[in-house]
């Protein structure tokens, strides 16, 4: 691999684990004999928290109550600076954990679901029956849904404990979580920086180990970009892979429920639980759901070149202008790592790539202008009374909705207006068709495509708040994937300079529709063989 990045890597050396060779990557051939079984190395290999919880419960080493207490104690300690949660259901979590312990004691571990004792953070735009659900908007302050979102219900049925509702940009519109109507979440790697967004709270909560895994939603990158910023694994499934029922709609044709974990195994485990057809969502797919976790090969069983024969395309357009050099070098390093694992990596050009961003903002805003009409103050949520109907509507919406949301509603309303529809909405749909086509063609030639998840690492709070175009440009790596409806996995792959310990960078891997299993398998191999980095934020080391 080209060595010019060496200097930068040295800056990050304190994040690296002791390695006799001071090499970036462990030689693959040495994998089986590598010090993988030492405690330090195991930490670097992103162990599965879910598996460890399961083992603890099985051996009786720890109870669900103890595990819950551990996470809650960490949550209480870190939350004042991170502020991941809009609502913490600590008492309910403790109660549920005790109940699990009782059932395990009387009926055995098989009586409880596979996610028993696993604390889950849920993005606050997913409905939860016994907790407030605000979508990060003041207009839903105090609103409590009558039902659980399908993804939440499935997690609960598998034994998971919902620990709270995580912060987000209002209704998912934003890339920093600064657009929340309630609070600003900080990045666990540097509390002066944003966690990304819109699922910033879900990403920071997993990063700070406030919960084991979390649910997010991804309309234009809202899972992948915060995963990259916070150094966690983030998965945006294929459109329709996970039911949207109970997800407060932002842009229905792009919205996907996604998930975060501190390891690929955990992410895969969650996906198996939440994925699948739901009769409550006509756009959910009945494509088979596999046990994604079981398809992941443990490190010690990997062949020397586990990606042999695999063709990987690195998207040319994502490594050019406007992308931080640190990010580019991290991605190139990741690419050479993939090569060392046996794959062929080539640059591929997606000619329609640059068209995706404007098309995305037209389509997403158009759908948002419609989807957010229901927040009118009539049936639920904040109501400002008025002398006539327009005053009631105007007052409730002016008062309850935030700046970014209003701006997108206005843009979307404009784009759908008579006389403008053809020039904007219709044209954007045509671009969408082009984007889909170019991805399809590229994915016929390559097994997966890779790119950065964002053009930069986490930036400073307030840095782009008054420059929406700069913020929108940050979505350029991710929006095309939503337009095409494809699955994408973000796995931490390196660091750039910043903060006290460097700032994580994520590698985005994009696959064909419903190829989550393949992405998770490749992501897992990548993660397990990336030995030199630990993606545990300094926040946790400090204590």
């Amino acid at each position, binding site marked *: 691999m080209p060595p010019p990045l060496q200097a930068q890597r040295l800056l990050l050396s304190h994040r690296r684990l002791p390695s006799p060779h001071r090499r970036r990557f462990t030689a693959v051939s040495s994998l089986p004999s590598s010090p993988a079984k030492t405690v330090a190395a195991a930490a670097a290999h992103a162990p599965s928290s879910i598996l460890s919880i399961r083992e603890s419960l099985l051996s009786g080493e720890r109870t669900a109550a103890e595990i819950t207490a551990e996470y809650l104690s960490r949550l209480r300690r870190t939350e004042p600076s991170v502020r991941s949660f809009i609502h913490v259901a600590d008492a309910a979590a403790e109660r549920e954990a005790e109940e699990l312990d009782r059932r395990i004691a009387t009926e055995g571990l098989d009586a409880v679901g596979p996610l028993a004792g696993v604390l889950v953070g849920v993005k606050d735009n997913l*409905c939860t029956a016994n907790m407030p659900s605000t979508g990060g908007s003041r207009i839903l302050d105090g609103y409590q849904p009558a039902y659980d979102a399908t993804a939440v219900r499935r997690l609960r049925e598998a034994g998971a404990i919902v620990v709270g509702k995580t912060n987000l940009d209002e209704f998912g519109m934003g890339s920093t979580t600064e657009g929340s109507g309630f609070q600003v979440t900080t990045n666990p790697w540097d509390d002066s920086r944003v966690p990304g967004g819109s699922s910033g709270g879900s990403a920071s909560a997993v990063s700070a180990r406030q919960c084991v895994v979390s649910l997010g939603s991804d309309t234009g990158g809202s899972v992948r970009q915060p995963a990259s910023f916070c150094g966690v694994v983030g998965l945006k499934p294929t459109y329709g892979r996970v039911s949207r029922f109970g997800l407060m709609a932002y842009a229905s044709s792009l919205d996907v429920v996604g998930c975060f974990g501190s390891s690929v195994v955990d992410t895969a485990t969650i996906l198996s639980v939440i994925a699948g057809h739901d009769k409550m969502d006509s756009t959910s797919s009945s494509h088979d759901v596999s046990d994604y976790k079981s398809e992941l090969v443990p490190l010690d069983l990997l062949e020397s070149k586990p990606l042999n024969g695999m063709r990987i395309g690195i998207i040319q357009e994502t490594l050019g202008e406007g992308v931080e050099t640190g990010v580019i070098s991290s991605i190139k390093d990741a690419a050479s790592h993939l090569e060392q694992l046996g794959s062929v990596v080539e640059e591929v050009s997606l000619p329609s790539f640059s068209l995706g961003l404007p098309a995305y903002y037209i389509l997403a805003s158009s759908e948002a202008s419609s989807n957010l*009409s229901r927040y009118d103050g009539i049936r639920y949520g904040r109501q400002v009374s008025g002398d006539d*109907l327009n005053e009631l509507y105007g007052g409730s919406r002016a008062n309850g909705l935030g700046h970014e949301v209003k701006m997108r509603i206005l843009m979307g309303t404009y784009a759908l207006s008579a006389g403008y529809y053809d020039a904007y909405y219709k044209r954007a749909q045509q671009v969408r068709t082009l984007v889909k086509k170019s991805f399809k063609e590229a994915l016929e030639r390559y097994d997966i495509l890779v790119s950065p998840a964002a053009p930069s690492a986490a930036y400073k709070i307030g840095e782009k708040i008054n420059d929406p175009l700069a913020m929108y440009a940050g979505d350029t790596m991710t929006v095309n994937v939503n337009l095409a409806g494809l699955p994408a996995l973000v796995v931490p792959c390196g660091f750039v300079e910043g903060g006290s310990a460097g700032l994580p960078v994520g590698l985005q891997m994009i696959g064909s529709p419903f190829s989550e299993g393949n992405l998770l398998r490749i992501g897992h191999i990548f993660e397990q063989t990336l030995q030199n980095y630990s993606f545990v934020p300094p926040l946790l080391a400090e204590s």
Partner: protein
Amino acid sequence: MALTLLRGMRTPVVARRNAGLFFTTLQTPLLSRFTTRAESARAAAHKSIQLATKEAAEQKTQSFEAVIGIETHVQLSTVTKAFCSCPYSYGSQPNSTVCPTCMGHPGTLPVLNAKVVECAVKLGLALNCEIATTSKFDRKQYFYPDLPKGYQISQFDIPIAKEGYLDLDLPVEFGGGHRRFGVTRVHMEEDAGKLLHSESGSYSQVDLNRAGVPLLEIVSEPDMRTGIEAAEYGAELQRLVRYLGVSNGNMQEGSLRCDVNVSVRPIGQSNFGTKVEIKNMNSFSAISRAIDYEISRQILLHKEGQADQIVQETRLWDESSQKTFTMRKKEGLADYRYFPEPDLPEVVLTSEYIDEIQNSMPELPEAKRRRFENMGLSMQDVLFLANDDNVARFFDSTLEHGADAKLAANWIMGDIAAYLKNEKLSIDEIKLTPLELSELIASIKNGTISGKIGKEILIELIAKGGTVKSVIEEKDLVQIADPAAIEAMVDQVLADNPKQLEQYRSGKTKLQGFFAGQVMKASKGKANPVLLNKILGEKLKANS
């Protein structure tokens, strides 16, 4: 402002705002439930009014022609709503048949009720439309408190059915005549809720029971020229949806609502005049009257040189004053910002599916009318028998049991219809069966009973049921057709009334009727009247 719009029915309410979440009301007094009998009672009344307004309209329309198009909303009688599993029944306690989905709660998604598609295809085929094998839903966006999501799920540029027509026969009393009116399109959509306005006007309440109930919107071509044509178009549509079983077609409950567009133009002009929309008619008679009123109003403005006063607007029909009033002026075209509904996949129909529905279609009113017409029945009979599915079925069944068409028609349209009207019943609510009606007709034809006795038996059968045979036996009603027996009775009557016999002989021959009556009385009405008169005549002649 919008709060004063009369979109739902106005009902007195005693309620307060409930916990900021919802507006609820106590049970409201309901309009009496509509049945076929109410319809037939009303039909009689409306015909005379229609006749009067028609004549009035005709006089005024000289040198002008009206152009009328109708948008009809038909509420489907599916078990559950269009996009959620809530039931719907008219008149339920407000907000009692609602769920997060039809209340437009965050995160909810529509799931299409397959029955809605089936109903749409049925009606589309019945209207001779082209059925779209691929159609889609769109969102029609506007704000109103009875519209929970801020948009209505509807179909915009690709309706499920288009380019059809509707055949009908105008009632004989309006000059009759066959008409074919074009149908532009049929599309699926969801209904909105209802606003209930307080008496004081200081607050309004929302009832979302109706929100999400499936509707078919049927848009006609501007093919109608008079109020009666429009009313008959509506009535034929009502018959169709009832024949197909897709809706109860009840106008009082709002299951069938007609919005009418009316414009007038000088005869010979090819461009349409400015069209005015009229709403709030809850009977076909009201449709006819409202249109004729509106035509007169517009023609008058033309004649007074004030045609510019005719503006694109929505007017409401006011039943008490028999006039239309401006509800709202349209400032340009409303922009509903339609776009494809991303929560619902396209509706894709296979030709097998469409064929299957086509093959399961019942005989429709138009086909029925032509069939009855070919039996030699008059148009008046045809319309009466074919226009009510139940009557038609009764009639057909009577014929299947061997009855003569004309005789069966006479019985149904005469004594049976009169009974139904008096008792306010529909034909399927009486105890008389088609089999017994055919038996009755046969018994009269073969001379077992007289026509007069037949009428008595009929009433008995309608009210209590049973068979013709058992009633005849039970009441000993078999006709006396034995000449000797009748002769004996005649002799007895003549012997018992010597005074009258003397008067007869002195020239008062009208008394033959008296003697006949006495004989009939003596026979308890069973004497064969033909035989009786023959024998009586002979006796009187012989005696004189």
